[in-house]
Structures are given as C-alpha cells and as structure tokens.
C-alpha cells in the first residue's frame, strides 16, 4: 500500500466533516475505522473527541503515518451529516475509489443551508407553534411569531460578526426579553411567559443535551462531559439574558413586571 497517507487523510477528513456538523463521537469513530478497513488497511488506530481527531496507520511499517485534527464546536448541519453518512456507506460497499470519495467529500462540504428568508420564516413559525404548544393562544402565538422573526435576524447578525456562542445566547435572549416587555408590563394584553418560552426555543440546548447523552451511553465520557457543560452553560446564558431586563425594569422603572 503506497497510498496509506492518502487513505488516512481521506478518512479523517470525512470524520472531521461529520464531527463539525454535529455527529456523535461513536458514529465518527466508527465511520473512520470502517473507511480505513474498506480501503484495505489493517493496522491502525483512531481516537475521536468532541473537538479533535487523532489517527495513525501502519505504525510498524515503512509507510507509517498519522493525522491530528482540531475540530471546533460548530453549528449543526443535518443535511451534510446525511450526505456524509451516505458517502461512508458507499465507500464501505466498495462503490467508490479514494479519488472519487475525495471529490464527493468536497461536494458534501458545499451543501448549503436553507435560504435566509426560509430560515427567517421557519424561526417565526416555530416560535409561534411552541408558544401555542406550551399553553399560549392565538394572540400569544402571533406575538411570538414577530419576536421569532426579529430573533432570527439577530442570530444572522451574530453569525456574520462571528460573535461567540455564549454571547450570542445572552444577546439574543436579552433581545427576546426586551421585545416581550410590552406584554409583561400589560401594554399589550397577552401572556408574557408563554411568548418568552416559545421564543427561547431556538436557543435551548436540545442538541447539545442529546449528543451528550449519546456520548455517555457509548462510553465517550470526556466528549459527553464537554457537550453537557455546553448545554448547561447555554441554559445559564439564556436565563441571564431573560432575567436582566425584567430586573432592571422592576427596580429601575417601578413597573409591575
């Protein structure tokens, strides 16, 4: 095997891409190992963490090589994950060569997110739907719809300016809290709490919690802990963002919030 390096790099690249779009550790590790096996390597090791990949192959031979990758926590992209999974499956069924696989990997990485307008509308409708599910009625849902629209706009801005994840959560939940103050102060006759609950749903760390549990379940305690702390801190940031404006108004403005 003279292309050990090429194969190992491809396998780790695919693993890297999967990790970036939110796969759990076990899936990434399993995929890397299966790809290496499918291309005929038998002496290798792969270790995956929630923000790094370490892999080596043919340690004891002449063509020994190893790859180390740093993978920062980033936004979940389920479409890429599905495409990468399909690619891994095809490689394991020996349906594509190393060169073809690298070409397909490039295409997988280019899969776009939904258009901004679609995301905007989705966020608005999602917030409205959650408000309704958690006991709001039509006026609350309508209010949450508009809060959701502005919220997604703020998320776009934060993403563009590359604001850190925690600050994004604080800023956006601050915004939600501010936007819902007219309801809290009784200017607009809707239930304040239902609007806020619906509107914070896009920020709530559901994915981090789920991934964390699955990592723990598969015995990847370190990665599970990282995701769990991520989930807890996100929840804390939301709580701080929501509470601050209410506190300020209650003691500064003497409003019955």
């Amino acid at each position, binding site marked *: 095997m003279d292309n050990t390096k090429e194969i190992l790099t491809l396998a780790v690249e695919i693993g890297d891409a999967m990790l970036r779009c939110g796969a*759990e550790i076990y899936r990434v590790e399993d995929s890397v190992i299966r790809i290496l096996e499918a291309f005929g390597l038998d002496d290798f090791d792969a270790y995956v963490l929630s923000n790094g990949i370490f892999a080596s192959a043919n340690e004891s031979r002449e063509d020994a090589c190893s790859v180390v990758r740093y993978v920062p926590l980033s936004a*979940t992209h389920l*479409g890429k*994950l*599905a495409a990468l999974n399909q690619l891994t499956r095809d490689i394991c069924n020996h349906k594509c060569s190393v060169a073809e696989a690298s070409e397909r990997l490039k295409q997988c990485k280019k899969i776009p997110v939904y258009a901004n307008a679609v995301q905007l509308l989705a966020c608005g409708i*999602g917030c409205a739907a959650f408000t309704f*599910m958690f006991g709001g009625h039509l006026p609350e849902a309508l209010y949450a719809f508009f809060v959701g629209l502005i919220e997604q706009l703020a998320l776009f801005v934060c993403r563009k300016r590359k604001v850190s994840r925690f600050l994004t959560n604080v800023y956006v939940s601050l915004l939600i809290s501010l936007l819902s103050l007219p309801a809290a102060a009784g200017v607009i006759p809707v239930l304040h709490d239902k609007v806020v609950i619906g509107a914070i749903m896009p920020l709530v*760390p559901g994915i981090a919690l*789920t991934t964390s*549990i699955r990592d723990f379940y598969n015995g990847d305690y370190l990665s599970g802990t990282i995701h769990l702390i991520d989930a807890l801190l996100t929840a804390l940031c939301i709580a701080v963002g929501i509470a601050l404006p209410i506190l300020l108004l209650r003691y500064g403005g003497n409003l019955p919030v």
Partner: protein
Amino acid sequence: MSYVLQFFIAAVATVTFAILFAAPKKELVFCGVSGGLAWLVYFILYRQSGNVVLGSLVATFVLTILSRILAVARCNPATIYLVSGIFPLVPGAGIYYTAYYLISGMPAKCSAKGLETFEIALAIVFGIIFGFSIPETLFHKRKQ
C-alpha cells in the same frame, strides 16, 4: 380533535426546527411526524397522569425508537430525526420559570421549578438510553 391539533402544531414546530438545522428536504416530513408523535405521547400522558417527568420519559423513549426505525427505513443517521424531534420535549419552559422565580424573590417556587427542570432533563436522558439499549438487530429484521 384537540389531539389532532396538538399533533399538527408539534409537527409544524419540529419541521421548522429541522429547517433551522439544515435537515435534508426529503426528510423534513419524517422529522415532523416523529416530533409530532413524541409530543402527542407526552401530551396524552400529561393530561392523564399530570406527571411531567413520566410524560417526558415515555415520549423520549417513543421518539428514540421511532428515530431508529426511520433511520433504518430511510438509510440515514437516527440523529436527524432524534435531534429535531426532541425539541418539543426539552424543558425550555423550565429554564424560564426557574430564572423568573429566582429574580422574583420566590425561592420555594424557584427550587421546585429548578428541580422539575432537572428531573425532566434526567427523564430525557433515560428515555434516550432505554431507546438505544434495544439491540440494533431487531430494527434490521423489521426491514425485510
């Protein structure tokens, strides 16, 4: 009728979140169905027993099984359906009320809500763990 409405609204909510997380277009409907069903299970159990934790546990379990069945049937990672469908069950309301009671000087209510939020999170944890503890082979047999 109210059940149908709840299912429908939860399905819509799940689909919008699947869009925010860039799920493949073909899978959106399946994400919606899994999220809707999970919420329906939660809603019915909550109505019948008044117990949020039990509802979350069973609903997460059902969602995990459903995600795994869909994963095998649609040749996709279970993550896609699980991650979108979990949102209706995640205790977002708990986070809000805990923070709200904390700043409102109601420590008893705050700790009660905080504990409930923690219990719901634990219920979700065990729902997923029980769902994944069913051996993979069972799902593959069903496919034939």
